[in-house]
């Protein structure tokens, strides 16, 4: 039996600075997981991943990452690796956590 499809987001690194990025509903890229589109349909996810992979001038290494709907209705990681990717390292206040402070 095929495994049931679990919700996913499309994520990658930005070509220029390597920062973690996510695909939005309109196919744009955002630096915030909370703005990513949560894909619940497998065929849709596959098509969008292909689209992402065809933008080599913006994204590197696009893949589908498991996610779930968080308390505020936006996507949240289900695995700790994705938690670090959306936050930044734990030894310094660098990366996304630092940028979030500036906005």
């Amino acid at each position: 039996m095929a495994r049931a499809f679990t919700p996913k987001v499309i994520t990658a690194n930005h070509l220029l600075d390597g920062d973690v990025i996510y695909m939005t509903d309109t196919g744009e890229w955002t630096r915030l997981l909370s703005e990513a589109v949560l894909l619940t349909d497998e065929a849709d996810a596959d098509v969008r991943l292909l689209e992402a992979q065809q933008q080599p001038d913006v994204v590197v290494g696009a893949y589908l990452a498991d996610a779930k709907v968080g308390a505020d209705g936006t996507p949240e990681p289900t695995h700790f690796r994705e938690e670090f990717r959306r936050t930044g390292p734990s030894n310094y206040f660098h990366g996304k956590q630092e940028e979030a402070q500036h906005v």
Partner: protein
Amino acid sequence: MYKYNDFDTAFLAERNRQFRAQVERRIDGSLTEDEFKPLRLMNGVYLQLHAYMLRVAIPYGTLSGRQMDQLALLAEKWDKGYGHFTTRQNIQYNWPKLGDIPDMLDALGEVEMHAIQTSGNTIRNVTADHFAGAAADEIEDPRPIAELIRQWSTDHPEFQFMGRKFKIAVSAGEKDRAVLKAHDLAVRVVRNDAGEVGYQILVGGGLGRTPMIGKVLNDFLPREDLLPYIEAVVSVWNQIGRRDNKYKARIKITVHEHGIDDIRARVDERFALVRPTFDGIDQELFADIKAHFAAPEFKTASTEAFDAAYANDTMFRSWADTNLHEHRADGYSIVTISIKKHGDTPGDATADQMRAMAELARQYGHDELRISHEQNVILPHVHKSDLPAIYAALREVDLHTANIGLISDIIACPGMDYCALATARSIPVAQQIATRFDELKLEHDIGHLQIKISGCINACGHHHVAHIGILGLDRAGVENYQITLGGDATETAAIGERAGPGFAYDEIVPAIERVVQGYLELRDGAEETFLETYRRVGLAPFKAYLYPEARANAA
């Protein structure tokens, strides 16, 4: 120190120019990532979890003050003000932007540095004993050999696209400070019964998924045979090494599968063919290289200032007791600067700290610095009379931690805080262990104890050869830490034994505390080190401390 000749300089400039063009073509979309990736890896550029990472080679861990200043400049200008020194005697920058990397490489080129062969299936940056040229127990400075191997292997046409990477280490001391037995190939300078100097060649060591201790391939190789012999080894492996499975491609597996005697026979056969193609130019080159590594002129002076500070200043004494090593010249010391302040990230130094160390090297240390695989910085040649001033200067930049060889002198790989391959974090585990034992004020009582942490099975943190090794894994989506005990990274190298089931992130520090408590109770007096106790009593008594529930259940 080795100085680039015109050819080296031109070669590097050309490489950097090529890479700049490749980056431009990647950014404007004319190169795909698949095309670009091998090119960037050849130039030390990785894509990590949050950003690109640039890995800069520090051949045999040797730097001048000017080079260290330049590393500081890179940290400040193109990164976040710090750099991370690795277990391969390299430095990594965690936040460069792709478009800036060509400028960073040019800046490195100004001080004869680069990022070539820090990645990819090539012969990697050759590592050496970090006390080379200074240690009291060595036959000669092994770095000229490292440099000779570096020159021979850089861009060697046969060895650019091998089945896997190939790591070489060299050392010339009785003690092994370069983890020789965990390298694909290691060269140990030895003296035979006739008093001649030659090389012992070890092969097939390695950590990672299948850890192996290197075996002796040749007990005594005449000096002039070194390069043809290494070439024979690499080419035998390149030919019969497995390419069907990445995890079986390293020479340790080839040696394991064929047996050391079979490999020796093949190497001898190959050597017979290769040897005549070396016409002695390599020996002329070697003589030339050696001249670059001439020892500084050591002075004879009073050590009164040192003796007085040692007698009167307890902080200084404590630092001197842990951070100094015996130098081969009278009145001199080898200073290890700990970049492992309790609670800080092992191996990280800020730009200010780098500059302060560079200045100390210029002022007191014959302009030489070393990076150790243990992720510390060394001033190899310091006269004892200068030590109080050095200590005072280190205090000003918070580099005076007195913990070399102690439990908080932890090796930790970047782990999941940075590394895209990681299965768990390692840095925060190191930070917490160091902080905890500092609070307990037990560190000096515990004595020599090496903890090494890797964030995945690749073992960049050398956990297999730690007295207490920690391996971070992903167990069903949760960080889990496996403990190994009794490993040894020195001439008596050993792979640690797995202690039992792993521990969750919030259980690992208490688990380490229990092991250490166990050691303090089991040891035969304060003189017996952790490793000695472990070798005497074995794993079982330690397990009882590590898994008290099991003991309670069994009772």
